[in-house]
């Protein structure tokens, strides 16, 4: 990780010095354990602020939407790069505007998972050699990083950036023996009643802060359907039906575009795993169209094209 950080700083400094980019978007050290803050660097001498560790889960593609700068450097792990691809395909940024500093990713730490395990307030989290040591006022515990990763990282099959101009390290081996859709299959096996109840309980804590939507690089609509007033599509209260409508439609708007970067779940202040909705759509896209979002600049998203061979048994 330290090597990554050094390489990122070095690259950013070089790009800025040589005037190849106007700014570099990356992470700087946060004020809390397991938190880093997205930031931009404009001067070569500030490149030292940049860091990389397993707490860079926020998807930086989110910060590219409609940026006007001619040249932007951006630090990108596997999922970020897939969202950058999606952004380029959807004309939210141009490929020529970007210098992508690729970071082979080994998974991000799940802050919540660690907080649940810790006996008290976490004062420090140190990672080294695939181990994560969590210090509280009274003790220190060490976990294998593989056990405390974000659940999307545990089943990630695209850890290496799919598009990049620079790489800070050699690619890491991809995970092959994982089933990304185990959780979706578990829900699919439920009866309708059980499913309804499952989502009732899942969404009950929602406070409609829209952190999931706003952390998502796909949610760049100038006016979201929940905010639209003329016509008003849905209620704005805490009524469970309104809450569910929001989550259902937001997920649907991500169909065929979601890279399962986990930003929504990570951002949620009340710990809702809304990925059970988006992942269902990802799974359907894979099963029906063999499509995974953001892997190539050369193919259009599944719901963006028509193919006479598209499965259509749902139409009578």
């Amino acid at each position, binding site marked *: 990780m330290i090597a990554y950080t050094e390489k990122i700083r070095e690259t950013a400094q070089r790009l800025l010095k040589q005037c190849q980019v106007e700014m570099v978007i990356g992470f700087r050290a946060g004020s809390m354990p397991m938190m880093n803050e997205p930031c931009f660097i404009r001067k070569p001498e500030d490149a030292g*602020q940049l860091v990389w560790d397993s707490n860079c889960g926020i998807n930086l593609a*989110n910060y590219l939407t409609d940026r006007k700068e001619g040249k932007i450097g951006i630090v990108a792990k596997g999922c970020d790069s897939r969202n950058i691809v999606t952004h380029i395909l959807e004309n939210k940024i141009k490929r020529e505007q970007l210098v992508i500093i690729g970071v082979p990713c080994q998974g991000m730490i799940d802050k919540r998972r660690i907080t649940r395990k810790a006996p008290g307030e976490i004062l420090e989290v140190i990672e080294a050699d695939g181990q994560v040591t969590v210090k509280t006022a009274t003790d220190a515990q060490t976990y294998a990083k593989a056990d405390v990763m974000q659940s999307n990282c545990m089943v990630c099959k695209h850890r290496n950036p799919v598009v990049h101009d620079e790489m800070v390290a050699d690619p890491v081996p991809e995970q092959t023996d994982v089933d990304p859709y185990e959780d979706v299959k578990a829900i699919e096996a439920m009866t309708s009643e059980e499913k309804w109840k499952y989502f009732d309980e899942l969404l009950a804590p929602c406070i409609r802060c829209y952190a999931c939507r706003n*952390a998502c690089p796909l949610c760049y609509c100038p006016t979201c359907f929940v905010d639209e007033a003329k016509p008003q599509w849905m209620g704005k*209260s805490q009524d469970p039906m309104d809450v569910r409508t929001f989550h259902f439609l937001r997920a649907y708007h991500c169909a065929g575009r979601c890279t399962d970067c986990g930003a929504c779940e990570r951002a949620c202040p009340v*710990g809702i795993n809304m990925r059970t909705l988006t992942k269902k759509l990802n799974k359907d896209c894979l099963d029906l169209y063999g499509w995974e979002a953001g892997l190539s600049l050369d193919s259009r998203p599944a719901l963006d094209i028509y193919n006479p061979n598209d499965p259509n048994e749902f139409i009578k």
Partner: protein
Amino acid sequence: MKVIKIDKTEWTKGLDALRGDYRLFGPVKEKEYCNFKELAKGESPELDMPNTRLSPKSLVFPQSEAMMAYSLAPGEDQNICKEVPKDYSPRAILGIRPCDAKAMVLVHMNFDNGDYQDPYWLNLYNASTFVGQACDKPCGTCFCTSAGSGPYNEQGLDVLLSDQGDHYLAKVLTEKGQKLMAAAGWKSEADGQALAGKKTAAETAITSQVSTDRLKSLDTMELHGADFWEDISFSCINCGTCTFVCPTCWCFDIQDEVYGKRGVRTRNWDSCMFPIFSVHTTGHNPRGTKLQRLRQRFMHKLKYFVDKYDQGIMCVGCGRCVQQCPVNIDIRKVCETMNSLDSEKFCAVQQGK
């Protein structure tokens, strides 16, 4: 006022006695987090917790609340707004932390602003008796002592409880508190000497601080025009987390909802982080960029409020926004940056501290 000793063995018995006269509310653990809920029969508040995930503001300011109702059907009452029945019977809020109680005191100034009184907020507030619990184990993100509150702060409380191992010491602060103690049957008076020591210890345990001394004297327009806002706001995703978890944020929206021939005018929490909060019908938005919106939040809390009421900052140092901001925007850092405008312009930001 008096200090009463409550043996922990008498705790649940007292709560049961209270149930006759009060609806009880307290922190309850649900899934991962504690939040304030109405306590079911036989349920005790979870007092041994760092603090609730969401602030208790929803107890007096529900996130969605019906304000009035009306009929749209032809008839005498058509289109006439009427008040809706509300339950303003006495409530006991158990285990509220001093920071959150102080927050209610600050919010009170907004909902009772001299010219108008908000009946919804005030009725619930006045119906509530606040039994606070002193914080002996503050978090690293707590900075209440430098934000006008403290782990043993009494403002806004009717009773302050301090955990003494096998018993609580209850400092009765108001008439309301007195009445609640009597209803619970807790009456063995004790001397409160143990409180002072614990108070000092708790205050010392707070390691995080903000400086606010210069905020009042700094020029509004200079702060507003400062160039640090671009750096601070870059990472902001404009979600409403900070405002919704904040005990001192009170902004709301009013919405009409129609069901067939009936309708309800409801109010919902709103957030200055959302673009539609301030957009005009013409489409013009005076705070159209995220920089402007983030600046509004911090300027309101740390400058406009300070100037308007002269009661310090509109923040009690509970640390919720610090802990829950998805991108780690830290009000302590922002406050320092604002407070040190000019003298150390940019240093803090440029060095990434």
